[in-house]
């Protein structure tokens, strides 16, 4: 898969403070790419460089094979975390203005606006002022402004904040539809469940450095502990515990079930799952046997606290 965006050894300093320290990223075409990191890690600095709001001190950014330059703004759509529109300007005029800034002709912008307003069911808002809209409504407008010019690369910074669950779902579906149409999406968020749900690639930035990058599944493999969550119904608990603690590391587990079984988390190290199963089946009836996959949440916390 070829990449739409390559960031090569980008350094950005503000005075003495290093915001990005030789950060390199590769965003594959057609992916939903989760950009993670604690507050102040350097995500916004990076996003601003990709949007050409600020320039890197050194390093380069390649968009679709070309070095990033001013004409590329029309291929990028950006939804900043800090939302904002002209509060006293009418919705329609405002969208037209912002679309024309992205290089659309007035007629084309109007056409696209009609399409999106229709699609999101907000046709009646054309002549309203932003200050008359609720926060969620304004967010919808902001989303439309971001995708209106059919960019190849979309950058969403916390796209779901401010939306109720119903509208969050609407936006989520739109993001997936955009991906289906061939757009690449960079997705910066602190909501790990959305990352699990949507992203196929992730990168984690911490204290100005990139620590992790890759396909989500590869990252998870990298972080797996070879642990299994086990539920077992046994008459001889002491015997069972004796057997397994001899061979494996055991801890308590917590999962939902219908039986009153013993719940354990067992780390098998280099042994095969069959060996564990063998021990278990001799001592009781296995009701639950699942490999523990590290969640993005776990990976995030583990990486950041190490």
């Amino acid at each position, binding site marked *: 898969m070829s990449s739409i965006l390559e960031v090569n050894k980008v350094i950005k300093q503000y005075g003495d403070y290093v915001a990005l320290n030789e950060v390199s990223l590769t965003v594959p075409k057609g992916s939903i790419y989760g950009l993670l990191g604690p507050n102040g890690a350097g995500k916004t600095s990076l996003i601003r460089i990709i949007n050409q709001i*600020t320039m890197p001190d050194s390093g380069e950014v390649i968009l679709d094979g070309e070095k990033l330059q001013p004409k590329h703004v029309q291929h990028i759509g950006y939804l900043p975390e800090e939302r904002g529109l002209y509060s006293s300007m009418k919705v329609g005029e405002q969208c037209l203005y912002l679309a024309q800034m992205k290089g659309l002709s007035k007629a084309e912008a109007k056409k696209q606006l009609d399409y999106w307003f229709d699609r999101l069911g907000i046709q009646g808002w054309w002549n309203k002022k932003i200050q008359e809209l609720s926060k969620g409504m304004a967010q919808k407008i902001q989303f439309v402004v971001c995708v209106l010019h059919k960019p190849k690369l979309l950058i969403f910074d916390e796209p779901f904040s401010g939306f109720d669950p119903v509208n969050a779902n609407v936006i989520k579906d739109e993001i997936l539809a955009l991906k289906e149409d061939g757009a690449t999406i960079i997705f910066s968020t602190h909501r790990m469940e959305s990352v699990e749900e949507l992203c196929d690639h992730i990168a984690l930035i911490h204290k100005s450095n990139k620590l992790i990058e890759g396909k989500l599944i590869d990252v998870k493999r990298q972080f797996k502990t070879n642990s299994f969550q086990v539920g077992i119904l046994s008459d001889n608990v002491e015997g069972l515990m004796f057997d397994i603690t001899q061979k494996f590391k055991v801890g308590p587990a917590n999962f939902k079930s219908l039986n009153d079984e013993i719940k354990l988390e067992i780390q098998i190290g280099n042994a095969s799952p069959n060996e564990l199963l063998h021990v278990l089946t001799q001592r009781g009836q296995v009701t639950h046997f699942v490999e523990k996959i590290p969640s993005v949440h776990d990976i995030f916390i583990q990486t950041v606290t190490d």
Partner: protein
Amino acid sequence: MSIISLIIKREFVAKVRNKSFIVMTFLSPLLFVAITGFIAYLSSMKPDTKLIAIHDESGLFVNEFIALNNKNSDYKYLDLSKVDIQFLKDSIVKENFEALLYVPKTVNNRELETKIQLVSNESPSISFIESTQGIIADKLTKNNLELAHLDTLAIKKAKAEVVFKLSKASGEESLRGLNEIKIGIGGAFGYLIMMFIIIYGNMVMRSVIEEKTNRIVEIIISSVKPFQLMMGKIIGTSLAGLLQFLIWAVIGLSLMFAASAFFGVNIGPTARVSPEMMHAAQQELTGTAQMYIKEIWNLPIASILIGFVVYFIGGYFLYSSFYAAIGAAVDNQTDSQQFLLPIIMPLMLSVYIGFFTVINNPHGTVALVFSMIPLTSPIVMLMRIPFGVPWWQIAISVSLLFGTFFGVVWFAAKIYRVGILMYGKKPSWGELYKWLKY
């Protein structure tokens, strides 16, 4: 449409559609006319006649004042020389006298010069004191001459009055008072520039702060360069301002005409003057007016107008770049005060220099220097131009102005670029300096 013209258009439309712009545009000429009319009405009212009591023990002056009663309507003089002076002093308040003029009996006139008293409850107006002193001094001088047995009539005849006939080396005749016209014209244009810079510079600043506080700026500068946004904003706002001035000019003029017709402001001579005198005066008046008009036409009108446009553009752009940078540096308007002071100061300074120095010595060192310094030249040079400024001085001043303008735009754009993305705290001067290096 190019991006910058898109921004200009949006800024212009946003300004013009704004309710406060519409209200300001149509209300302020009305207010201006109403205030002018009100003042005109107040000053046309006749003040109450004030009573002045005179107790003249010397008997020299009382007739001079009584004679004034026929001419002067503001003051009425009463001869109370026979009344006891202590009683008079005590009864000023009760009798509603404005003042009591007390001339004591003295050995000679010399002593009298410092012995005359003017007693009043409230301090009398300076013009009243001066005119009263003048009357007494004149009378006293005349009396001194008579005592010395000099022929006052001969002396009066011998007294010469000199009036210069003014003309320039180029041969044109020139009029007394023309300097006032020149400074008036230059001053009006200079003042206009200052007003425009302050009002519309502030608008640019507010517009920057607005974009910054509602965070739309991040979306916009992901599409355009901060420099384009700043320039578009400055130009768009200035166009809105020009439109406002144009409307004001039109409304103001028509309202002034209407108002002067309505109040019937007295332009002609008063009715008490006899027809012949009126005729003569009128002829003299028209003659002088014609001369003045001729003189005004002799002014370097083309230079003044071109100068106005050039200095207007240079000055406004220079200052509004500062305003834009300040707007970018702060989060709200209250924080901007600290940075605004250094901007307002040179503006004020140039107006003062214009009215106090240029009028006295339009080609002196102070006027010359300040008409070169870019921060003051738009106003000071404009005030000098009606007096005739060598072209090379204008050339240097204009190139300095525009050179500085480009420098300041560069500097402001840097502050702007960093500032619009900085939220939360008010920066110090030191931090602004650091931003220049980002």
